[in-house]
């Protein structure tokens, strides 16, 4: 196992008091928290300082850490012979875990010895982030991903494990939604029910559709004559192309609604598709068209800026 100098990581001396440790950690957390930091490697740095603080903030874990002795950072070491008996929770399994796992097991052992629950307790919930394409979210999908967990090894210790999990995602899920896979968290304690697995859904952006819950929005470019005269235009929807009737006199920015053509959930609830009219103009016109536009300009009394008069 590689040694990590938790005191050096937090930038405090080995005799630092609890307040000094907390203050040093807070400063580093503000600097490196991935939610707010723009620093390179912020996430790695934050993991490192939070691992150090997790151990040093707890008097018992800190004592156990100090008992490991002083080593150079990165040096391979094994805990002293009596260490496991004093702080560990079962059979030592030092080869396949790191320092953070070792101290998680110190806490597990401590809880096991001093606060053994006498009634059933639900298992811990797991959480995973699942990235879906727009099409997967629309149609539903079967996805497989790796779930990293720390679990009991059956001999009182803890181990790091990765499980392949395959889940069926129902159709009509939206970005930011959380789904639940019942009973697929950690096993319960003393006969308690297992925890659940929660999936945080992230849906990739689609080049055409913008989503808002179950509703979809799409831009609808119209030729000037289509907007003025009205038209039947074909537009794409995730369920296939449909004909949309554009009423005469449609203005730019006007929204046309296609009821029930948004995302559809398995329970039958569905959103709408909103087409936002834009007036597109040709950038290249030939002589004949130019003449027609001129003729139109001469005949038309339309003043699009009438409302600006007098202002």
């Amino acid at each position, binding site marked *: 196992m590689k040694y990590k100098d938790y005191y050096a990581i937090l930038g405090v001396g080995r005799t630092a008091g609890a307040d000094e440790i907390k203050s040093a950690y807070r400063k580093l957390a503000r600097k490196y928290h991935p939610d707010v930091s723009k620093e390179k490697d912020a996430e790695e740095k934050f993991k490192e300082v939070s691992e150090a603080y997790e151990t040093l903030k707890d008097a018992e874990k800190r004592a156990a850490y100090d008992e490991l002795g002083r080593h150079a950072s990165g040096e391979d070491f094994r805990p002293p012979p009596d260490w496991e008996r004093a702080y560990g929770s079962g059979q030592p399994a030092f080869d396949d875990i790191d320092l953070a796992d070792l101290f998680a097991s110190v806490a597990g052992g401590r809880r096991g010895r001093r606060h053994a629950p006498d009634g059933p307790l639900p298992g811990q919930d797991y959480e995973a982030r699942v990235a879906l394409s727009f099409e997967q979210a629309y149609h539903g999908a079967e996805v497989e991903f790796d779930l990293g967990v720390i679990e009991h090894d059956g001999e009182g210790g803890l181990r790091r494990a990765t499980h392949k999990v395959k889940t069926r995602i*129902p159709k009509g899920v939206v970005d930011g939604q959380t789904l639940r896979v019942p009973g697929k968290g950690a096993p319960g304690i003393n006969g308690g029910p297992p925890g659940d697995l929660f999936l945080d859904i992230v849906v990739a952006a689609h080049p055409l559709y913008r989503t808002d819950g179950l509703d979809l929005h799409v831009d609808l470019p119209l030729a000037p004559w289509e907007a003025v005269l009205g038209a039947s235009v074909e537009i794409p929807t995730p369920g296939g192309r449909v004909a949309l009737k554009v009423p005469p006199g449609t203005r730019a920015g006007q929204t046309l609604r296609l009821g029930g053509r948004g995302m559809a959930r398995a329970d039958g609830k569905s959103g709408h598709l909103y087409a936002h009219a834009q007036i597109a103009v040709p950038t290249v016109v030939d002589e004949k068209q130019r003449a027609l536009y001129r003729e139109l300009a001469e005949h038309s009394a339309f003043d699009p800026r009438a409302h600006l008069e007098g202002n």
Partner: protein
Amino acid sequence: MAPDAYDAIEIEETAVVSVTELSARSGLSEVELRVLVECGALHPSQLEGATWVFSRRSLAVARTARRLRDDYALDDVHSLAILLRYVQRIEELEAELRRYRR
């Protein structure tokens, strides 16, 4: 061997958890949960007898609160409630921004 596929389900709007279960599953104490409710950061879905019950969605909010508490070593729950509200607002704005960028 390929694992079996499990069904992921929508979080039932009507399913509820007690304060005790919310505390056990989020890692926040019941006292912290009560302060978050008083500050308006968490909303109980109904009052059952003398105790609060929460929607399952509250679990995600409570977990975020616990993560913030631990990540920033916060020991004042009122500050935590304010920070939580800011984080929720940022998430809402980011979601809106993503929608407009599509």
